[in-house]
C-alpha cells in the first residue's frame, strides 16, 4: 500500500501548494506505515521532491502530456496508481487539481474528498476535515473506501524540507489523445495569482470607482500580494470577475487579507473568513467586517492606504 501526491508543474516549476501536499502526505504516509510517492507528469520542475519528504518520484511522460489536460493526466496518473498499488492520492486544490481529482477517483473506484484543510495523523482513523458552506463551517468526513483521492486547499499545510534526495523513475504513459481541443490560452504574467497568494489586498465599493484601484495595486505590488475585490465591484466591472472573492466567487485562505472599503457582508466573509490575519480599513466603525478582523483602522481609505504604501516601501527598501 502506498500514498501518492500529484505534483503540479507550471512553467517548468513545481507549485508551492504541491510542496505543501508532499510535506503533509509524507508525514501521513510515515505514520500509516506506508511510503509517499511523488508523481509528476509532462514537464519537470527543478527541485528534488525528496527534500519535501517523498520516498519515490515517478515522472510520467508520453504523447498528449505536454500540457495539462484533465483526461490525459488522469489516465497517466492512473497508470502509476495501478502499477504501484497506490491507495490514496493527494492533489493540491488548484483549478487543474480540481479537474483531475474526480476523473482519477472514478478510475480508481474510490472515494473523493475535496476542500481538505486538515488530516488525521494516520489512516487508522481516516477522518479528514473539509470546508463547507463556503468556509462558514467545517465537516469531519470519514473516508470509508480503501481507495481515495483528496484535494488539499492551498495554504492549509506547512512545507517541511527535512527529507533527502530521491531518484526519479521514468515511466512511459499511454494517455491517448485529449478529448477536447485547446484553442488558445491567456495567462496573466507578472502578477501574484489570487488562488495561490499568501497575501491579498482587496477593495470594495467604498473605493468609489475603478480609477481608484491604483493605490490597491500599489500596496499589493509593494507587499508582493494579489488583488481581490467584493462582488459588486466585479459586477460593475470595475475589476475582472476572477478577482471576486466570497460565497459566489473564489474562496481564499491567505496568511494576510487586507480589506479596504468592504463592509463585510456574510457572503463576502464566507469566502475570506479563513484567512489567518484579517485587516479591515473602513470609515464606518459599525461595519460588520470589524467583528471578523484581527486589526482594524477606522478611517478613510484615501488617507490610510497611501500611508500604508509609504511605510511598506520603506520596509521593503523601495522608498
Amino acid at each position, binding site marked *: 500500500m502506498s500514498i501518492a501526491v500529484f505534483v503540479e508543474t507550471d512553467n517548468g516549476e513545481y507549485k508551492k501548494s504541491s510542496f505543501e501536499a508532499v510535506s503533509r502526505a509524507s508525514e501521513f504516509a510515515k505514520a500509516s506505515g506506508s511510503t509517499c510517492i511523488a508523481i509528476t507528469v509532462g514537464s519537470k520542475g527543478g527541485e528534488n521532491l525528496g527534500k519535501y519528504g517523498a520516498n519515490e518520484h515517478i515522472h510520467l511522460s508520453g504523447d498528449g502530456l505536454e500540457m495539462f489536460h484533465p483526461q490525459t493526466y488522469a489516465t497517466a496518473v492512473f497508470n502509476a496508481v495501478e502499477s504501484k498499488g497506490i491507495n490514496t492520492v493527494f492533489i493540491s486544490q*488548484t483549478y487543474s487539481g480540481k479537474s483531475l481529482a474526480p*476523473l482519477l477517483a*472514478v*478510475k480508481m473506484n474510490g472515494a473523493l*474528498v475535496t476542500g481538505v484543510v486538515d488530516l488525521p495523523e494516520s489512516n487508522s482513523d481516516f477522518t479528514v476535515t473539509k470546508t463547507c458552506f463556503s468556509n462558514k463551517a467545517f465537516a469531519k468526513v470519514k473516508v470509508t473506501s480503501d481507495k481515495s483521492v483528496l484535494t488539499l486547499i492551498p495554504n492549509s499545510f506547512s512545507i517541511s524540507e527535512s527529507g533527502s534526495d530521491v531518484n526519479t523513475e521514468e515511466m512511459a504513459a499511454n494517455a491517448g489523445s485529449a478529448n477536447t481541443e485547446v484553442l488558445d490560452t491567456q495567462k496573466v504574467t507578472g502578477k501574484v495569482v489570487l488562488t495561490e497568494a499568501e497575501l491579498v489586498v482587496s477593495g470594495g465599493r467604498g473605493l468609489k470607482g475603478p480609477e481608484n484601484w491604483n493605490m490597491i495595486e500599489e500596496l499589493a505590488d509593494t507587499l508582493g500580494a494579489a488583488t481581490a475585490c467584493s462582488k459588486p465591484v466585479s459586477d460593475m466591472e470595475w475589476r475582472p470577475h476572477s478577482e471576486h472573492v466570497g460565497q459566489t466567487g473564489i474562496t481564499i485562505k491567505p496568511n494576510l487579507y487586507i480589506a479596504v472599503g468592504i463592509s463585510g457582508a456574510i457572503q463576502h466573509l464566507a469566502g475570506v473568513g479563513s484567512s489567518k*490575519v484579517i485587516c479591515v480599513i473602513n470609515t464606518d466603525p459599525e461595519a460588520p467586517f470589524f467583528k471578523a478582523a484581527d486589526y482594524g483602522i477606522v478611517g478613510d481609505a484615501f488617507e490610510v492606504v497611501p500611508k*500604508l504604501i509609504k511605510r511598506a516601501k520603506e*520596509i521593503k527598501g523601495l522608498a
Partner: protein
Amino acid sequence: MNILVCMSVVPDTTTKITFTENDTKFNTDGVQYIINPYDELSLTRALELTEKHGGNVTVIHVGEASTDPVIRKALAIGAAEAVRVNAHPEDGMFVAKQIAEYAKQGNFDMILMGRESIDYNGGQMAGLVAEMMGLPLINVVTELDSDGSSVTATRDIDGGKQQVKSSLPCVLSAQKDLCEPRIPNMRGIMQARTKPLNVIEAVDQSSGTSFDSYKLPPAKSGVKLIDAENAEELIDLLHNEKKLF
C-alpha cells in the same frame, strides 16, 4: 439540442450556519432554500442555447421531497421538465452515479452543472459525471457557445483563461459571468404548475465517505484597532510581529 441541467438546492447565502444533534446535523430550522447560484447560470444558458437551436432543457436534482418547491422554480424559469432522484444527497460520488445513470438513458447533447455547490463546495460533480459517462469535460466555464454539433467555451484556469472546443455530447460546469440569470415571470410560474416533475428512486446506495460531524470556525478574539493617524503602525505590526512579509 437537448440539455440536462444538474441542480443542487442550497441554503440561501444569508443563512447563519448552525448545527444540531451534537454537531452531527446541519440545522435546517428557518433556513430558506434556493437554487445553487451557479446552477441558475447553467439553467439560463441552457435555455438560451435551446432557444437558438431548438430542443428542451431537463433539470435533474438528487434530493428529498422538501426540495420540490425549488425545483418548481427551475421549471418556472423555463425548463421543460424536471426529474428528482429521491435520496438524501451527501456523498458526491453517490450523487454523480444517480445523474450519470439517468443521463445515459436520455439523449442529451450537453450536461451542464455549476462550478460548485455553495453548501458542500465539492466542485467535483462535473468531473465525476463526465468520467462515469466517458464524456469530455470542460470545467469552470465563463463563456459557452454552440453551433449545434460542437461547443466552444472559455474557462478559468490557474492564473488565466483558456478557450476550449469539444464535440457533443460533453459535460460543462458554469462559472460566474456565463450569463445574466433569468428570474421566473408570472407566466412561467403558472406554467410550472403543470410541467412534469418525475420522481425516481436511487440506483446504487454505495458511498465512499460519511459526514460524521461539523464545527464552526474559531471566533476571532477581537479586533485591535489602530488609529488612522498612525496607520503606518499596521504595516509595522504585520512586518515585525506577524512576520508576514
